[in-house]
Every structure is written in structure tokens, then in C-alpha cells.
């Protein structure tokens, strides 16, 4: 067996792909015209691999011609049988040209067969092919790569010998928190089809993503990785070397080749090796063991299916620490997005159907025993079935914590964990928090023996694991009888109220210590968030209190105290101590930024922001757009384009990233005139924040302000919006010029 076999096959495969891409491009140009637009849906990254590697934008069919030309230059001649020339570099080039060609092929498929791929996160009964992840999915999922809930992905090509083996492997990958990206067939079936046949829920929500029935669909995985480097890593398109090294060092992905490895598979695998993604095969193909382009081996073969994933993580150099949680179902972030619905539901609590609440509160050390879990009322299987055949029951989850370092400020932080910690359990679905929580337990979980008490056990185990530094003891009571739930609900609501008043009362002016957040530095090395009480983290996940607690828990962790220092400009929010910190943290790239302005030295953005605000000069105001909104905006750019141009740790005046919550905080763009400058936001965002927007309007003395904010139903061009604002008498129109 020889590496030369791989080299020859990969180069042959690359030639086939480039030939095919060229032919398809020519046909498409004949059919649609050279000026016809082409691309993947809803993305600011064009054909992302080509854009990332070459800095070349493919917007129209004619833009593919230079790409094909480049492929031809990259394509090496076949490997000679005897006296061959060095081929490793050539094979890698062949692999890269394969990826370019595959992007051409797949994007033309979007033209020829517009409905071949779904444009959603979920599969349907008659179509499981998800195709390219749009920027909304990429950002949402990318954040999980950023914060570590997903360390990487497994790109699976082919199929397992049986659907049972496929299901077992998928579950193992899910337990290791990895995404599974699937493409290509073997033996007339695909891994993703096998999962469906085995009754496994697939789609983005369960991290089992069925891209395509063809191996060319693997570029959706590689394109995802390429975009992560540009979006989160702040690497410029065309800076191919940095993008590839970023992936080698930070995106822990690998290829699992399941079945006979064809020339086309070899060529695709060669493309992946450029990114440092090795291939692990279940067939006895030649191996490439010496290291260098990947972190460790490049191709490892003939691995039994029950060892493949362990081998793959070892070869990729990935350490996955899976917490043992004492519950009878599988447990981990991969199960967070799994749904429980319809006939699958065994039991339901909350969600407006019954009372439900979650409450964490501090007690004296001697009041509880650590690890005590009790169920006050009926267990899941004892809940009665109602006349409609449904099992509905009230639930109050009361978590008591105690410890010398425990502060009441940490209670809401612990409480907020309950949502995802419960959701991590396979077969359990959790929505909401506090008194609007909603729990569904699936039949599959009950079959495995899941009980209310398990919720207590998993909360105890996970809270200890993640927050053990701030408390010593934790006990959980699951109240499931109506009287007790009513009583706890009243106490909990009292606590929520007190808490909100305390947090709401915190002001930047009276706080001397802010916190940095470098949680996403594993992915976005050039950006540093600084979080103050009135400017929560732009990703929406971290507020000032969270940072404070995080620092207490892990003093050398990603949240460090930043002395506010001398106030250089109270209106714009410019602080000497913060400036000094960011100068150091950005290695001198950014020496100053303002907390409350988007016009002057705005804060940098990592690409994980929930919303982006942009100036609308004609309207004399600002708009903001959330990442879920896919449509056009009056500033002329969709969210994806905005995020693409300003992610990666640069300060770009006229634009700023922020969280949804921040919109109704008192200091929101206070330096540019404040909340009353807000003239446009998507309808969906307005609806989501409606109550808080209304309260904030009252605070600034314009009770109907929320109704003065335009949305896409008014228009997505500045002029239409301006006319509407003028007509409505929006205050921004008559304010001082925002351009200064």
C-alpha cells in the first residue's frame, strides 16, 4: 500500500471535478447568461471557500470563469508510475481545486434545481437535504464553536454497514458535543438516511446535519469552517494561509470515510487536509501517518466502527471532557435543540397549561445537605391522564444553595442555567425560564426510566461542576403538587421582583469595575468585549453580573475585572482604564473605544452580536437589525453583510454590534442622542421586545415611542422610512444632526 495510490486517486478525482464544474458552468452560462446571479442563499460570503481562499467574489456566472482557470493552474499532472515528482504539495493543490470546483457545482445546482435543498434548520418528511448553511445558521451555530459547547464537527461521507451502527455512531458524536455533517452515498444509501430509518431526529437542532446525497456536499461543511475563520476569526478574505491555520488550530473537525473510497472522495479528503482536517476510514485504504499539514496523522484507515470516533478525536488532537451526569438518558449540548412533540409527548408542565416556575435561592449552610433531591408530589409516571388523553402537571423547581462565597447576585445566574441543563437531557424539551418555563418529557425518556428526581440530580451535578467555586452545597426540590407549586410560585415571584429592581438600578456611573469578556477568543482572537452594567455583552449571553460571577468562579478565566479609571467622556462613555486595557488586549490595534456611541470610535464586534445598529443619515437616526431577520434593511445591507463587514474586532464608525437587551438599556447609544434616535427595526424584533420598548418609551417621556419606530412593513429604503417618520412626528427627524 502506498501513499502514491492516494495521490494518484486524489489527482484523478480533482480532474474529474474540475472537468464537471467547467462543463456545468458552460451549460449554465448558455442557459441563464453570463450575467445571471449565482450563489448560496442568504450569505455575505459568496461561495465561501473560493471567497476565503482567493478573495474572489462569485456573484454572477461569469465570475466562475477565473475560478475554473485557477483550478486548471492548480491541477497537477497525473502521478507517474515510476520516477514520480514530489506529490504531497500537488495533492493538496488538487484537493483545493476540488473544493473550488465543488462549490461551483453546488451553486449551479441551486440555479438548476431551486428546491433540491431545503432552506431551513429542519428536515421535512420528503426532503432531508439541508444544503448550504445560511449566515443565520452559521452565526447561531458558530457561537457554539466559539463558547465551546461544540468543539468541532465530524464530516461523514458514505454510510455505515447498518442503520443501527449509524445511530450508535451519531449518538456517540452527539455525546461528545460534536456536530455531524453528512454527505455522499455508499452502497445506495447515506448515513443521514440511515439515521432517519433508525428513528433518529436529524437537522441542525440535533447537530445531525444532512447536507447532501453527493460528496460535493462536503463543501457545505468546509464552507462553514471557512466562514467561521472570516466571521469569528476576523481574517480577511483571501488571506488563505491564516484561514487554514485558524481551522487547523481552532476548528476540531475530521472526516469519517464510511465505505469504498473513490477518486472523488480522495480528492475531497485532500481538500480537507489543507484545513488540517484528517480522514479516518473504515476501509483498508493506504494511511498517511507522518504529521505536519494536519496536527497529527493525515489518513488513518481500517478502523472498526466502534472505535472510529475515539480514534478520530485522538488523531485530530481533540480532548472532549464529557461530564458524567447520573441520569438514565444521554446528556449533552447536542440534545439541547431536539424537539419533543405530538405523539412523542408523555408529560407536559407549564407553557401556560399548568403552573410552572424555577427558583434558585440561598440558604444557610446547615439548612441543607448537599445532593439532597426530593420530589414533593407525584412522579412523572404518577401524573394522571386528563380527559383529552394528556398528562399535564404543575411543577416548581426549587434549588437551594449554600456556601461562604455565595451571594444573592449569583442566584439569577444559577437559575438561568436550568433551561439548558435540563434541555441537554435526551428526550426532554425545556423552554423559557422563571414562571414562564415549559417542560416536555418524551416517551423515549420515560422508557429509559427518566423521572422528576433526575432533573434534580442533573442540576445538582452540573451546577456543582460549573459553579462549584461559589457554593458548597446544593439541594433540589421538585414540587409537583398544586398547593406546593402555588406557594413556591408566590415566593419566587417576590424574589424575581426584588432582583429586577436591584439589577435595574445598577448604573455605569456608580460602578468602578467593569469586566472584560474573552470567552470567544478561542475563535475571535482580536476582539475583546468590555461589559458594564448598562452595556451588556453584545452576544446577549453575558451581562455585568454574569461576568462578576464568572470571575469569582474562575479568577484566571475569560472574564477579568477592568478598572473603569478616569472618566474621559461621560456622554460617549470613554474611560481611561478601559482604553488602557483594550490597547493591551488588542496588541495596540485598538487604543480607545466608546461605550455609548456608534458614530465615534464605537466598540468592536466579534461577529457573535445579536443585533447590529447602523446610522441612517437621511433619517437623522439609527436602525438596528437582529440576526434572525433575513430581509433587506434601510441601510442597504442585510444583517449578514453588516456582520461580514464589521466582525473580527474592528471599530467601524456608523456601525456597532449590541445585544437585544441593550436596546432598552438607559445608555444605548446615549452618546449619539440615545434611544430616541431609533427609527427602524425589524417587526419581529419589535414584537419580541415590545413590552420593554414601551416601558423605555415612557421613561423618555414619549409613551407611544414604540409605535414611531418603522419596520419592514413601512419600508426598507431610507426615503420611504423618512417620509413615514416625518408624517408620524418621530423625534429623531428634528434632533441635532447625527453626523455632527
Amino acid at each position, binding site marked *: 500500500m*502506498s*501513499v*502514491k495510490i492516494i*495521490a494518484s486517486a486524489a489527482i484523478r478525482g480533482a480532474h474529474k471535478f474540475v472537468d464537471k464544474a467547467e462543463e456545468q458552468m458552460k451549460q449554465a452560462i448558455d442557459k441563464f447568461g453570463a450575467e445571471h446571479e449565482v450563489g448560496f442563499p442568504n450569505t455575505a460570503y459568496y461561495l465561501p471557500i473560493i471567497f476565503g*481562499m482567493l478573495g474572489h467574489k462569485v456573484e454572477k456566472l461569469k465570475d466562475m470563469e477565473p475560478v475554473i482557470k485557477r483550478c486548471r493552474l*492548480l491541477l497537477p499532472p497525473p*502521478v507517474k508510475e*515510476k*520516477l*514520480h*515528482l*514530489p*506529490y*504531497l*504539495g*500537488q*495533492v*493538496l*493543490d488538487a*484537493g*483545493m481545486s476540488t473544493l473550488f470546483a465543488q462549490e461551483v457545482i453546488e451553486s449551479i445546482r441551486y440555479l438548476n434545481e431551486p428546491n433540491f435543498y431545503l432552506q431551513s434548520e429542519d428536515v421535512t418528511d420528503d426532503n432531508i437535504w439541508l444544503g448550504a448553511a445560511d449566515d443565520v445558521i452559521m452565526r447561531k451555530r458558530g457561537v457554539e464553536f466559539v463558547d*465551546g459547547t461544540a*468543539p468541532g464537527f465530524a464530516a461523514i461521507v458514505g454510510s455505515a454497514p447498518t442503520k443501527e451502527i449509524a445511530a450508535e455512531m451519531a449518538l456517540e458524536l452527539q455525546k461528545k458535543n460534536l456536530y455531524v455533517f453528512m454527505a455522499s452515498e455508499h452502497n445506495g444509501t447515506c448515513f443521514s438516511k440511515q439515521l432517519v430509518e433508525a428513528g433518529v431526529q436529524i437537522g441542525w437542532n440535533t447537530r445531525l446535519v444532512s447536507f447532501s446525497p453527493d460528496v460535493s456536499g462536503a463543501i457545505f461543511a468546509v464552507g462553514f469552517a471557512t466562514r467561521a475563520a472570516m466571521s469569528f476569526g476576523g481574517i480577511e478574505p483571501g488571506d*488563505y*494561509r491564516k484561514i*487554514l491555520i485558524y481551522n487547523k*488550530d*481552532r476548528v*476540531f473537525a475530521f472526516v469519517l470515510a464510511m465505505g469504498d473510497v473513490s477518486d472523488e472522495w480522495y480528492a475531497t479528503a485532500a481538500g480537507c487536509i*489543507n484545513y488540517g482536517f484528517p480522514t479516518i476510514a473504515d476501509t483498508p485504504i493506504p494511511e*498517511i*501517518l*507522518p*504529521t*505536519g*499539514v494536519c496536527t*497529527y496523522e*493525515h489518513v488513518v484507515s481500517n478502523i472498526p466502527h466502534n472505535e472510529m470516533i475515539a480514534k478520530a*478525536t*485522538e488523531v485530530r*488532537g*481533540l*480532548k*472532549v*471532557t464529557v461530564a458524567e451526569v447520573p441520569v438514565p438518558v444521554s446528556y449533552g449540548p447536542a440534545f439541547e435543540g431536539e424537539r419533543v412533540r405530538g405523539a412523542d409527548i408523555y408529560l407536559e408542565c407549564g407553557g401556560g397549561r399548568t403552573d410552572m416556575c424555577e427558583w434558585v435561592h440561598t440558604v444557610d449552610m446547615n439548612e441543607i445537605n448537599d445532593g439532597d433531591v426530593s420530589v414533593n408530589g407525584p412522579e412523572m409516571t404518577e401524573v394522571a391522564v386528563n380527559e383529552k388523553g394528556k398528562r399535564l402537571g404543575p411543577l416548581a423547581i426549587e434549588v437551594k444553595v449554600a456556601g461562604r462565597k455565595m451571594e444573592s447576585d449569583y442566584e439569577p445566574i444559577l437559575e438561568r442555567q436550568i433551561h439548558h441543563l435540563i434541555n441537554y437531557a435526551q428526550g426532554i424539551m425545556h423552554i423559557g425560564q422563571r414562571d414562564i418555563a415549559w417542560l416536555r418529557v418524551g416517551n423515549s425518556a420515560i422508557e429509559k426510566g427518566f423521572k422528576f428526581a433526575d432533573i434534580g440530580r442533573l442540576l445538582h451535578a452540573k451546577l456543582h461542576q460549573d459553579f462549584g467555586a461559589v457554593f458548597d452545597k446544593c439541594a433540589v426540590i421538585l414540587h409537583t403538587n398544586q398547593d406546593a407549586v402555588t406557594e413556591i410560585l408566590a415566593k419566587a415571584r417576590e424574589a424575581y421582583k426584588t432582583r429586577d429592581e436591584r439589577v435595574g438600578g445598577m448604573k455605569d456611573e456608580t460602578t468602578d469595575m467593569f469586566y472584560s469578556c*474573552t470567552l470567544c*477568543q*478561542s475563535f475571535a*482572537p482580536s476582539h475583546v468585549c468590555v461589559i458594564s452594567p448598562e452595556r451588556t455583552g453584545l452576544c446577549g449571553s453575558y451581562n455585568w453580573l454574569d461576568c462578576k460571577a464568572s470571575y469569582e468562579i474562575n479568577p484566571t478565566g*475569560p472574564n477579568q475585572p477592568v478598572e473603569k479609571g478616569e472618566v474621559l467622556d461621560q456622554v460617549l462613555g470613554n474611560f481611561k482604564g478601559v482604553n488602557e486595557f483594550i490597547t493591551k488586549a488588542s496588541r495596540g490595534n485598538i487604543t480607545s473605544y466608546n461605550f455609548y456611541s456608534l458614530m465615534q470610535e464605537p466598540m468592536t464586534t466579534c461577529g457573535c452580536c445579536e443585533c447590529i445598529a447602523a446610522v441612517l443619515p437621511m433619517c437623522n437616526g439609527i436602525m438596528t437589525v437582529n440576526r434572525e431577520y433575513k430581509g433587506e434593511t434601510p441601510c442597504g445591507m442585510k444583517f449578514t453583510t453588516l456582520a461580514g463587514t464589521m466582525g473580527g474586532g474592528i471599530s467601524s464608525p456608523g456601525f456597532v454590534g449590541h445585544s437585544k437587551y441593550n436596546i432598552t438599556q438607559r445608555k444605548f447609544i446615549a452618546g449619539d442622542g440615545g434611544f430616541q434616535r431609533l427609527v427602524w427595526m425589524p417587526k419581529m424584533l419589535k414584537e419580541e421586545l415590545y413590552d420593554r420598548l414601551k416601558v423605555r418609551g415612557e421613561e423618555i417621556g414619549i409613551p407611544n415611542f414604540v409605535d414611531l419606530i418603522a419596520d419592514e412593513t413601512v419600508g426598507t429604503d431610507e426615503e420611504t422610512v423618512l417620509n413615514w417618520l416625518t408624517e408620524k412626528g418621530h423625534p429623531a427627524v428634528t434632533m441635532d444632526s447625527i453626523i455632527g
Partner: protein
Amino acid sequence: MAKQEKTPQDRSIDQATIQTLEIAQANKVMTCFDRLDSQEPGCKFGTQGLCCKNCAMGPCRIIVGKEGKDRGVCGATADTISARNFIRMIAGGASAHSDHGRNVAETLLKVATSDKSDYQIKDEQKAIKVAMDLGIEVGDRDIKDICKEIAEVSLAQFGQQHGELKYIAKAPIKRQEIWRNLGVVPRGIDRETVEIMHRTHMGVDHDPEHLLLQGARCALSDGWGGSMIGTELQDILFGTPEPLTSQVNLGIMKDDTVNISVHGHEPLLSEMLVAASLDPEVLAYVKSKGATGVQLGGICCTANEILMRHGVPIMGNFLQQELALATNACDAMIVDVQCIFPSLPSVAACFHGSIFTTAHIAKMPEAEHIEFDTDNALETAKKLIMRAADNFPKRPKGKVNIPQVTEEFVAGFSHETINYMLGGSFRASYRPLNDNIINGKIRGVAGVVGCNNPKVQHDNVHVTVIKELIKNDVLVLTTGCGAIAAAKAGLLKPEAAAEFAGPGLAEVCETVGIPPVIHMGSCVDNSRILIAATAMVKEGGLGDDLSDLPACGSAPEWMSEKAISIGQYFVSSGVYTIFGVTFPTLGAEGTTKELFEHMEEQYGGKWDFEADPIKHAQKMIEHIDKKRKALGIDKARERVLADMDARREIS
């Protein structure tokens, strides 16, 4: 006891050499092998470095330990005399390489300032890179304009009197500091050679250590000066080499072609001969003489130069120059400078071919001189080929003996191509090389370079040393006549990895698709090895200086002063360097200690000597193992698995 006559089989391991040597003997033609026999036993004093003829009070011959005979007339000791002789050899070698570099720079200047030069700027990317190395503004300047400045700046390096040579800055920072602390950073190229001649003049510098420091400074002006200018600027003019295949040995000559041997060192003429050999006018003339075409074949480093860039086959190495003529198939041998036997015209007289000298500095009484002028390069080249073609009909019938011996091989490795072949266009780097040295699949890297010497069995020492090294997983980089020896022995074929290399090296060779022995070019191209070694240091994981690398150098069949200069610049660059055949200071203990011991304290690299090829290779491997241990890579390392925290720590 009667002296045993040496057979051709004793002289060489190369079949083509053996066969043609038999023909030469049958024709009673004297070759270097016969002349060596006549010379032996050689002067004992000269061999040991104990003879001084620098003034007319001598020659003085030193007998160490014998009172009255242990000093020269002036009072010079064995150590003073041997150190002086040694650095004079460096001066000789460095001036040869540097003059080569100067000629290239002058040609580049002509190309850059003229519209009608026969040469052109072939590698613009390289020109831009060189410009940046030399601190020359690139901007959006015209490439000719940039090259003009490159040539001017390079030429100025030769006559520079103060400061530091520019390419010194390409070395690892730590290395530069060592040189500065020892005061051996060359001020200019020519100045260091002149200073050696001055210091070794009667009655000037008598301190062996002090003399050897100047020797180091002069050698550095070769390796990081003249030679490097030669290589870099040749790449601009003629293109940076890329991997290619070719053939080697006297069997490349054909019965029906005009066979022309190009012998010497500089590629200026040979590049034009390649172009002229394809010229329609020339081909028509050649056909009119009854031949089907022109077969060029190189000898010595000219061979390597046109091989690396055009794949022109190699006729042979240094000791085959006379034998090429003995085939009666070599219609002409066109020579320029260095390593050319003055015996060639007399050997040629016994056969049908002609010798043409072409360099204005190098003539032979009985050879025809057709001076090569870079202003009229193509015309001269065409004329030379046509003169060779005139000899084609004169081949004596029935007396043409082309040995049917050839071997195929892969060559064309440069720093740039190594970088590419290890990672492709998008991930080019030395990382895989460093990684596999760190993980022990490759034990280390050895440069095996240099000449042939009839005192040892031709090619045998090169081939034996190289085989022993690769068997022990040492990757070999080779240049010069050593590279040709390795090519003839089949060691430059990728298939040689499985046959001759240890399992670790073989695995890496198979992964990259390379032979276990990498042909890096001519002897000025040893500067490529310096650049490659520096790239390894800069890639990281193998220390922070050249002397930290598990690497060493060897010239197992050396004979020329150039070899001493190369050896010294390798030693001064921190590389353990071992020579075979003989060593020119062995009679002087103090000087030898300076070279073999003290230099290791000064430079981290040192000289060594071992004639036995296996022991020679073992000493190299010992040194590599010593360096591996110092780096802490002598033991297997645990695989590091990264979690999120580890990834956050990547800056």
C-alpha cells in the same frame, strides 16, 4: 615488494567510469588516476599542512617535536604555518565562488539596463523577494528597474569596506549575535579575501586562533555573500528550480547526435547553449553534418546548473571529464572556470573531440579559445555548437564507445520548492519536515556535498556515506559532484526510499513523494542549504539557531579549496562538518584542536575528519543524536489533546 597495479574497478564504483577507463588505458592515454600514481607518495609535509613557501627564505618544512626543525626560518611554528595555509585555501575557495556571484550580478545589471540582451528576467517573484531581502523599495516599480538596483546593490557588496554584508540578516538572530561577538561578520566580500592574503604574507599574523577567525569571516563572505548572491541572482535570471526528472552518466551521449559536454561552473554560457541547441539555424547546420540533433550533457557544477533549470542530462562528475573524451562520442567539451583539468587538450588529442575554453580568465595552451561575451551570448553559443558539429563527421568509425550506462533521477529542489512540496500552494511551510524530525521519523538532516578525489575510490565514499545516513533515517541534501555520484547510484530516485532508507525516513519520503536524497544544485547552491536550514529554525520547534538543529555537513571526497571555504562557512554557521580523504592541518596539533574542538565553543559547529565512510557517517549520526538530546526530542513525546481552554490560549 612490487607495487600492485590498480585496476579500473579499484578506481571507481561507477560502471561507465570503469568501462571508459579501460578504453583510455588500452589507448595508453594518461588520466588523473595514472598521474596520481606517479605523484605518490605525496609530500608528507604538504599533506599535513607543515610546508610553508610564502617567502623565499623557505620553503620550510616543519618536523614537530624535533628541536631545531620545529620552526621555519622566520620562526613560524607548525600551528602558525598550518593555520595560514588553511585560511589561504579558504581565500582561494571563497574567491572562486564570489567571482562566480559577481559575474552573475554583472549579467543581471546588463539585462536590466539593456533592451537587447539575450538573457531575460525569468523569475519576477524571486526578484521581488530578493529585493525585499536587500531592503530595496519594490512599490509598483518596473521589474527591470528593481533588478537594476538588485544588481547594483549586490555588486556593491563585493567592494564594500565597512559595515555588514546584507545577507547576514537572513541568518537566525542568535547566529548573527554570535558572529558579531566574535567579530567575524564580513565587511565586504573582496576585502576579507584580500585581508587573508595580507595576514598570511610573510611576517604579519602569527596567532592560529586569530588567523582562523579571519578564515571564518572570509568563508562567511562566501556562503552568506558571494555564493548566495550567485544563487539568488541566477534564480532571477534563469528561474528558480522546480522538481524535474533527468538522466545521468556517459550513456546519455548518443551515436546520432552531436554530443557536447559543458564543463565548469557558471551557468551563463551553458544557459545560452541550451537555447542555441534548439535554434533552427543551428539544427539545420547540425543536420547538414549528418547528426539528428544536439545532445548537451554537463560535467561538474555546470551540469547541475542546467540540470536544475532545464533537466539537461548529466554526463558525469569531476573524475569523468577526461573519460568523456575517451568515448570518441564527445564532439566537443566547452569549459569555463573551476575544476577543469589542464590535461584535457592532451587527452582530446588522442580522440576526436575538441576542447574550447570560453572564460576570459581561463585559457589552456593547446585548447582553442572562443571567448564568451555576455553581450553576444547567443551568437557565441551558436558558434560553439556549430564548431562541435564540425567534429561529428570526424568520429573514428568503429572506435566510438559510449558505455551503455545511465540512471534516472529527480532533481530541482530549492528552498522554494521544498516549502511548496511540503504543503502545496495554500499551506506551504517547513512544518511537516520539522514535525517529523521532532517525532523522530526523520532523525536529522545531513548535507553531503563536494568533489571527487582520485585518492579514494571514485563515488564510493559519497555513496557509502549517504547510504549509511539514509539507512539511519537521516534525510540527505546534496550538491555538486556528490549529488552526481548519488544520482548515478540511483539514490535520487523516489523508489530509493523504500530500498535504502530507514522506515521512518522512508515513510516521510513516501508521504511527500520525494527521494531520500535531495539534489539542491551546484556548489554555490550550498547557500540554498543555509537558507533551508534557516527556514527550519524559523519554522520552530528545533531550537533557535542553526547550531541547535540535528544537522551536519560532509564532504567525503573533497579536493578543492572551495570545499574548505564551504566547510568553514558551514562550521561558522553552527554546523558540524566532517571531511573525508585527508585533512590539511593534521600535522599541527594546535590548529587541528582549534578547528576540531575550540570552534565548537565559538560557533556551536566544528570540523572533523574521518576517511572510512561508515565511521564517517556514524560520527555524523552521533552528532545528530547529541543535538536531538539537547533539544529533548530524543524520546517519544506524548500526544497533546486540546480542549477549549487550550485553544483560548493560542494567541
